[in-house]
């Protein structure tokens, strides 16, 4: 049983209730995907999103999945960072860490005119899987937590 980008929209008591329900109904595994608030890619994308949509409501609430696992008796198995795709319009060009990382993965592609397009799905997958676990954890847009019931 899994969800991605859902549970962080609940208040803390709702997050706990949600996990408790997941534990009741899941036979083996639960996986929770939440945005990585510290990821330079996520931060850059969020700034772009707020700029374009002219809204700045804090829809993503604080969440500690490991703590929720502990409180509900779900055993933590693994965590991965996921999602490194970003186009130039979403890039924060003032973030040197992000620029350094993107220069590394985009080969000779022009960062200022870079758009992820339909032909690049397999390329993106290959690029992401070639990264170290550490890079995926730091830069991945999402954090995926896997637990065993």
């Amino acid at each position: 049983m899994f969800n991605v980008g859902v549970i962080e929209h609940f208040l803390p008591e709702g997050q706990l209730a949600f996990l408790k329900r997941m534990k009741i109904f899941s036979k083996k595994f639960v996986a929770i995907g939440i945005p990585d608030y510290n990821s330079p890619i996520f931060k850059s994308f969020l700034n772009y999103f707020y700029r374009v949509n002219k809204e700045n409501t804090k829809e993503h609430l604080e969440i500690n999945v490991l703590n929720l696992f502990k409180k509900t008796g779900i055993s933590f198995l693994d965590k991965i960072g996921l999602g490194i795709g970003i186009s130039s319009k979403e890039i924060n060009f003032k973030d040197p860490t992000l620029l350094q990382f993107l220069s590394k993965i985009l080969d000779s592609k022009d960062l200022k005119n870079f758009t992820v397009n339909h032909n690049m799905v397999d390329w993106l997958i290959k690029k992401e899987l070639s990264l170290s676990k550490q890079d995926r954890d730091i830069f991945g847009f999402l954090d995926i937590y896997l637990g065993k019931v």
Partner: protein
Amino acid sequence: MNDNNFWKKEINRYLKYRKYKNPFSYYYPEKKASMGILVNYFADFIDMRNAKILELGMGTGLALVLAIKKGAICTGIDQSAEACKFAGMIKEDYLIPKEYKTLILLMKISRNGIQMKSLT
């Protein structure tokens, strides 16, 4: 923006690409890539053949469709009618008819999480 308005806009964007063979790759290539990686990651831990997978808040339902391609039997739930409509389109676009019964879409219609409306 409420959920239904958000998904209505996303459906309209997706519809522009439905004329192509692989519309999701045009609509949201980054998501296509990351959901592909996610489903492969799940496959490292579980045998996907006949595995029963439930996604709470499925949105487009793409992850479930990719899991079905690996042999899983999937159910997706979303509280937004428009998200369910979108997932229905992804189901039509990516599954062959004999796979249809392996994806069940449900819409949550009550806040207490008990009542469900079956869409398929």
